[in-house]
């Protein structure tokens, strides 16, 4: 069964497609529920994946999410082809955003994307090359006994 304990699936995301944007994270949520992860873990992964997916939609030309699941960890690698992030440290700050007014009008681009991904993941690695694109690796561990939740409300029972 060892070889069988990895599940891997990729999802393509198109820049600027606000209509379909969000479908990949929806699918990831469904998959994680079917794989018996506790609701609080699923929810954190869903929020992180959604934010990352919308970053592609909002800022990149195209890209994708790659989900890799083992019984003890969920890894989501988000890679895009696009403008890249000039100053990652700045982009990680709450409220910092380069979103256009149009994007803000739609309720996005509040500068909470990357900080929110970090908040909902156990490990987050980000690298970016200007003019080429950005890669974010999100890791959520599934086997820590105590369910962690940084939201102001307590997590639902797992």
């Amino acid at each position, binding site marked *: *069964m060892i070889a*069988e*304990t*990895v*599940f891997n699936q990729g999802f393509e995301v198109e820049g600027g497609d606000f209509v379909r944007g*969000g479908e990949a*994270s*929806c699918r990831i*949520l469904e*998959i994680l*529920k*079917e*794989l*018996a*992860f506790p*609701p*609080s873990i*699923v*929810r954190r992964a*869903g*929020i992180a*994946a*959604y*934010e990352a997916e919308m970053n592609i939609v909002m800022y990149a030309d195209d890209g994708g999410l790659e989900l890799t*699941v*083992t*019984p003890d960890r969920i890894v989501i690698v988000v890679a895009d082809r696009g403008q890249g992030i000039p100053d990652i440290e700045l982009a990680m700050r709450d409220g910092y955003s380069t979103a256009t007014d149009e994007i803000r009008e739609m309720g996005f681009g509040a500068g909470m994307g990357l900080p*929110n991904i970090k908040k909902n993941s156990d490990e987050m690695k980000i690298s970016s090359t200007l003019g080429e694109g950005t890669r974010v690796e999100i890791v959520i561990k*599934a086997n820590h006994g105590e369910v962690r939740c940084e*939201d*102001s*409300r*307590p*997590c*639902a*029972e797992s």
Partner: protein
Amino acid sequence: MRIPDHALRVDPARCTGCVECTRACPAKAIRVRDNVAQVLPERCIDCGECYRVCPQRAIVPVTTTHTDVSTFKYKVALPSPALYSQFGPSTLPEDVLQALLSLGFDLAYDKAYACELVFADVKSYIEENYAGEPFISPVCPAVTRLIQLMFPALTGQILPFRPPREVAAKAIKADVTGRLNIPEDEIGVIHITPCLAKLAAMINPPTAERSSLDGAVGISEVYGSMLVALKQAKSDRKARSMHHSSGAGIGFGRAGGEVADLGIEETLAVSGVMDTIKILKDLERGKLRHIKYLECQICPGGCIGGPLTVQNRFIASNTITEFVKLFGARPDIEDMMKAGGHEREHFRLSKAILPAAIPPLDADTSFAIGKMRLREDIFRKLPGKNCAACGAPDCMTLADDIVRGHAKIEDCVFIRADGRSE
């Protein structure tokens, strides 16, 4: 036979196995086996979509019968505010309540009043307890069940209030027992319901709390006799005192009624099963950050769009608009609490609503991963036409059923045909 824990049955004599219900079911809870629709009780959310679409009328609501009602010594009708919307604006709530009495009920209780009473308290609860995540309405039982099954992480966000119908039923029993000295078990509180979900929630409550209701009769089932009784009730209009609700309470009969009554700015009202699923998916992914209260109703347009209503829901909505104007704003909560001798703790759930998630592919993630990979392999072999001829609503669901051991790949007509030709 009734589907366990639910308020419907499939009539095998009428069902032709046409798969209309299978495809319409938003919970993917119906399979056609041996040419008869089968409802999977652990997946059904009681939305009634199958009942709406069945061309053979083979999906039958299992409501409370006349005989069941007559076993109670004291019979109380508790009509959904949606009932008021069914007969046009010239038929007043008073008339409707009076007509219910002539149908044989000893008391007709204005449930709309319980709605505005409970929600007056909900408003202050939200203001005191909001902590960054929206509260979800506890009123529509199909929504509660949908959340328990498909959005287990959100169950903690369902407002910990008893639905107004339960608050009303409990209060009525206490009142009748006190006033008339009739034991509680001889009082039957019967909900006059626009849907199957209310009855299902009585049979199988979302918490460990027992329901205070004793049965439910569909609006469509009493509609004919109501028309006759209303004629008499309207010709004989005298000062009566059964109708207490303001426009606010009557507004609960349709979508948006709860948020209109709350009068809080950061609220959202959604109705219809697909739109409800969509908004819950948004909520699950952290999209609704600025909303304090989310009203969701499984039926389009709210209770007036329920599968057991008769009137066109847009016409019904006009009638409600008239009543909202006519009966105005609700009184101050403190006055209402004092007048009725109510206590806030009666409004609150004593037990938590717990998730009842659809079982994962396997309780052990390692095995679940193996099964998911297997499911992908099976899915790739299927034709992808989503024809539902196998009895499952689509190819992915058939693959899922196969992995869970409930179906086999030969159930697919295309696979069978290929097998024969080889």
